């Protein structure tokens, strides 16, 4: 749809499509269907050769004399490129209960995360809440208190961000720190296994489960929406 709007303004577009069934209906001017899972439009991370083959195939469509054009990437996904079943907190049991100290655990994760940053040219998906990374032990403490009825306020929270949005983004940031530190420790780990580890074995995962429960118990739709986001 967006491609059609841009093309109608005189700019040639080419799109990567992950859902052929939708693209067949929408008919963007030019689209390359790729056989990869969601989150993998260009193929696989850290595989520049494959990414270039996808890019070249998408850009080649610009030579077509007329459209719409829907082409298929002339290669198939490899075994292991399947989209795994979604994993959210409610789908992961906590074997025997998790009793660790979430604040101390987060401090350990921050030490691992510093190495992740050093190894990845500073690249991190962390940074939605506006609270700097070194204050996250305090954020975790605030989230724990919030789950138990506290006000959830953290100094430095952007003034125009409502509390449920802030809690959602702080939870996303916390998950980013744990996810990336897990990728550092286990470079070949799958997304499914990271989710199972976080929700099943970490103290922070249990804090977020309780935060979710408090948000979800509210009648306020904004709180309920944040609850939905926090626990997955």
């Amino acid at each position, binding site marked *: *749809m967006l491609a059609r709007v841009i093309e109608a303004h005189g*700019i040639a577009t080419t799109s990567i499509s992950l859902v052929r069934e939708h693209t067949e209906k929408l008919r963007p001017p030019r689209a390359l269907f790729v056989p990869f*899972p969601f989150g993998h439009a*260009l193929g696989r991370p850290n595989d520049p050769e494959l990414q*270039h083959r996808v890019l070249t195939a998408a850009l080649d469509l610009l030579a077509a004399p007329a459209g719409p054009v829907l082409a298929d990437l002339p290669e198939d996904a490899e075994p292991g490129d*399947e989209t795994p079943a979604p994993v959210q907190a409610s789908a992961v049991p906590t074997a025997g209960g998790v009793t660790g100290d979430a604040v101390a655990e987060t401090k350990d994760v921050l030490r691992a995360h510093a190495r992740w940053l050093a190894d990845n040219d500073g*690249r991190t998906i962390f940074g939605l809440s506006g609270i700097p990374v070194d204050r996250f032990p305090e954020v975790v403490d605030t989230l724990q208190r919030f789950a138990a009825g506290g006000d959830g306020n953290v100094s430095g929270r952007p003034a125009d961000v409502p509390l449920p949005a802030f809690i959602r983004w702080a939870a*996303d940031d916390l998950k980013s720190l744990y996810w990336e530190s897990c990728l550092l420790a286990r470079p070949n780990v799958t997304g499914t296994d990271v989710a199972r580890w976080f929700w099943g074995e970490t103290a922070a995962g249990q804090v977020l489960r309780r935060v979710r429960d408090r948000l979800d118990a509210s009648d306020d739709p904004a709180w309920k929406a944040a609850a939905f986001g926090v626990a997955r």
Partner: protein
Amino acid sequence: MPRLDRLPEASRKAVLGLPVKVNDTAPFVRPARPLAACRVALVTTAGLHRRADRPFTPGEQGYRVIPSSTPAADIVQSHTSIGFDRTAILRDLNVTFPIERLRELAGDRVIGGLAPNHYSFMGALRDVATLEGESGPDVARRLRDDGAEVALLTPT
């Protein structure tokens, strides 16, 4: 994939449940110049933005500008969903936003260069009326003003 027959049942239902407009034709313009002379912009629906920008809220139909000069380390994603595996973009931004691959193509003179700005929208939108009527055309005009001749659209 996700070839739909390879998706887990819950994901397949979620995807097929999204409203999709059916069109019979498409607007179509040929690039004015050979690709090797065209400036290329990225337009993504992956909910990416600069760290200093306000994150997207679910369902938001606005957009964020990502200048070409933005270091990869300053780009974050506020679209999170159990519908896709986040570890891919954590490992490599280019898997969704192939900015470094485009720079390589510009270096090899396959494309003329990168446009000065790229644009990003939120993913998984159900209501796209504002995007179609306001924010989409706004981005199209900005692309034109930027001198972009080709836009590559990437989903998440």
